């Protein structure tokens, strides 16, 4: 019997959708679902929702809920991690302090000054989880959804013996968007996508085996609606020749080209029609909305009268777990150590490549080299994040500063002295959440 543990199970919508999908697979219908969160109220909602799904589907599965992490992990086969270390009050400063220095951040959960400070706070928590796993479920596979993906996965891959892969919806989400643009049914699309999380590139993108890039190029350059849906990414595509994953807002932060001046932000980052064109602090707005709205949303779900569908949705962690316990093999894009996978990214860095799940476990596919114009940008982030992980694990504030000093957006806006002052400000604000740092003066 398979035990699947959710750490951060209070992510109500995610937990119930993944459980719904998991239980549709015959080998998993008698699974033990163990839910853990530090917030008892959210945990209760999640527990009730899973019970409801089990009841509706008449599954032999069992569900348990606990605030005790080690208890939840004991004997687990799979551990799904969706945590957020610290409330909005803590991480709003990741975005607000840089803004006072002129750095305009849209999401700030991946890289750059905000992403790096999020990593500094979250890595100790992730390490605690992994250390617990080493004690009570050393053979379990961790599926991590928590950001910043690259730095968290790399820290764990480097420091612990736990097997893990990082999962994100950006690869398949973008692939579906591109298919829609060219009018192709997704079932007829194949692609090879590789790079690092939130900055992976479709090295090829095919419709029924034929290169679909010419069609994409025509759609982006000739159709206004297509261009406007993803202005930043379309600009990148038209100039770098390969399409990149994650939203335009995210990507506008990862390079020098889009947010260093107000006129550029206005031109590229405000008017896009996609879900996140790139306005300032979009993430704060969203989370504040969710902070007040999640309870009502959960209650609405329980109250709804139309039968709740138990059909399998798109949470691909369910397919991965099913494949490993002996079901249908499943290919996905996962975040794994770069051991011979991408030649022109740093060895051992956390890369996002095609991975196969089967009863053999996880097997990443070798990709070769990225095109140089993509590798250049991706390398810059990958190397900065290697530095940040080193700094986070050794508690070295100066190395944190040096990592941020190389961040392209930061470097395009600020002098070295200004960056140093900003990083010191951020450290002071975060002092209580950085136990691994003996001192925090750059």
């Amino acid at each position, binding site marked *: 019997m398979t035990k699947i543990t959710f750490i951060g199970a209070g992510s109500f919508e995610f937990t119930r959708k993944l459980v719904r999908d998991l239980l549709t697979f015959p080998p998993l219908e008698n699974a033990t679902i163990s839910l853990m969160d530090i917030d008892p109220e959210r945990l209760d909602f999640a527990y009730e929702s899973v019970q409801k799904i089990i009841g509706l589907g008449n599954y032999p599965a069992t569900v348990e809920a606990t605030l005790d992490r080690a208890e939840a992990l004991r004997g687990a086969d799979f551990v799904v991690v969706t945590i957020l270390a610290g409330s909005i009050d803590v991480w709003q400063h990741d975005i607000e302090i840089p803004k006072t220095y002129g750095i305009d951040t849209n999401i700030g959960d991946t890289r750059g000054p905000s992403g790096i400070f999020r990593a500094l706070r979250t890595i100790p928590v992730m390490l605690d989880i992994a250390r617990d796993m080493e004690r009570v479920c050393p*053979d379990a596979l961790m599926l991590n959804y928590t950001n910043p993906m690259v730095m968290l996965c790399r820290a764990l891959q480097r420091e612990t013996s736990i097997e893990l892969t990082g999962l994100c919806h950006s690869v398949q989400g973008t692939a579906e968007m591109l298919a829609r643009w060219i009018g192709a049914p997704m*079932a007829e699309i*194949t*692609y*090879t996508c590789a790079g690092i999380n939130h900055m992976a590139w479709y090295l*090829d993108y*095919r419709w029924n*085996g034929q290169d679909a890039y010419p069609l994409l190029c025509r759609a982006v350059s000739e159709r206004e609606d297509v261009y406007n849906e993803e202005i930043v990414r379309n600009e990148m595509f038209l100039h770098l020749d390969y399409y990149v994953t994650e939203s335009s807002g995210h990507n506008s932060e990862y390079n020098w080209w889009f947010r260093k001046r107000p006129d550029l932000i206005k031109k590229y980052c405000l008017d896009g029609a996609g879900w996140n064109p790139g306005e300032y602090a979009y993430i704060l707005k969203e989370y504040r909305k969710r902070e007040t709205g999640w309870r009502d949303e959960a209650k609405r779900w329980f109250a709804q009268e139309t039968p709740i569908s138990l059909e399998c949705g798109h949470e691909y962690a369910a397919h991965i777990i099913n494949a490993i316990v002996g079901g*249908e*093999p*499943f*290919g996905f894009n996962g975040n794994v150590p770069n*051991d*011979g*996978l991408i*030649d022109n990214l740093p060895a051992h860095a956390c890369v996002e490549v*095609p991975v*196969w799940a*089967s*009863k*053999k*476990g996880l*097997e*990443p*596919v*070798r990709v*070769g080299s990225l095109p140089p114009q993509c590798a250049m940008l991706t390398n810059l982030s990958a190397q900065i994040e290697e530095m940040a992980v080193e700094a986070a694990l050794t508690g070295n504030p100066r190395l944190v500063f040096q990592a941020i000093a190389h961040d392209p957006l930061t470097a395009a806006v600020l002098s070295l002295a200004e960056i140093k002052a900003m990083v010191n400000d951020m450290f002071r604000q975060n002092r209580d959440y950085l136990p691994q740092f003996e001192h925090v003066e750059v």
Partner: protein
Amino acid sequence: MPKITLIGAGSVVFTRNLCSDILLTPALQDSTIALMDIDPERLAQAQELVRVIVERRGLKARVEAFTDRREAVRGADYVITTFQQGGLEAYALDIEIPLRYGVEQCVGDTLGPGGVFRALRTIPVLLDLCRDMAEVAPTALLLNYVNPMAANCWAIDRATGWPHVGLCHSVQGTGEMLAGWIDVPYDEVVYKCAGINHQAFFLEFCRGKEDLYPLIRAAIERDEIYAQEPVRIDLMKHFGYFVTESSGHASEYVPYFRKTAAMVTEELVPRFKDGVNDWFDFGRTGGYLRHCLKRLDESRLVYEEMIAGDTPLPTRRTHEYGSYIIEAIETNQPARINGNVPNRNLIDNLPSSCCVEVPCLVDGNGIQPTPVGALPPQLAALNRTNINVQELTVEAALTGNGEAVHHAVMLDPLTAAVCTLPQIRAMVDELLAAQTQWLPQFKELQTK
């Protein structure tokens, strides 16, 4: 629907099995199957056998036959090679000439003087085929079943870069055998196998997370098990891991088992106590050649029985990877195979670009090899002794440099254990002279 071309389709039993696999695959039942052979009589037999399957199953597949290779390949999506250049006539020379110099080959299709000359004959044909594909089937994937696998695939990669994968059933065949020895259902077993073709090693053999090697170690102590695979079991006892090709093959890739006729007949053959070793005559020199000659006589009988309807149609696919690969590419449903591909950072401690056999994942994106890392050093060292010979063989085949042929055979582990350098030189010269008709790339020979 894909067009699948078989080159060397006159291997009627293999053709019939592979086509039966294809026709048992729902997504491929409307395929066009193009059969090609230079022997019109065997080609007609092969076509008849496949046609009978299509007809009895009431399928829509088309079956075409060609003696012209380029026409068979035109428009193909997949080209599968199963030919034997020079046939049994050349093969007999591969065995008989070296035997006169004391080189006792049992199978002689992989390494050793036999393997070297088989590669020299085969590579020009494969390169011609790649040129045909470039002109008339530019998107075709080549699935090569022709031995010697490693040298052939390496030459294709080095000379043409044509997309290809080399296929053999030794990995899954051995996996099934080991599972049987320890009484674990094969579909519960997972393994990691890597190295070079015919000398890949099961680095892991597990059920879930349970390591099954302790059970294998116990099994090989049983007499009836040892009687099936004495050479491979000895190799495992001394090198630590189980290897993929049969004991007959395995005995000739290393210097330890068959240095003299007496060693073969008095020490080696008596240890093959189990009847499963009949197909290579229990390790005797030339054993597999004799099996092939006998099989030639039998194949007409097999054919007649099949045509007469005396042989029931297979209802299940064999373990050959061919149909699974084509299905995975056509349907984008993943399959996991062990394939022979160029070593581009796949095995760290084997030479770059040599042909390695590693786990590959197949789907709509094609053949995607997985990196294995480093092999245990003693296994990599064994592989390298074989790769040395392959490298020189490929060099000779592609450049027509006769000296490289001599060097290849001089570095063959079995030959080197038996012969002096002058003996090897004389033996290679004799082989070159005897096989000139199949060696167009050696200009000096042609003018002699």
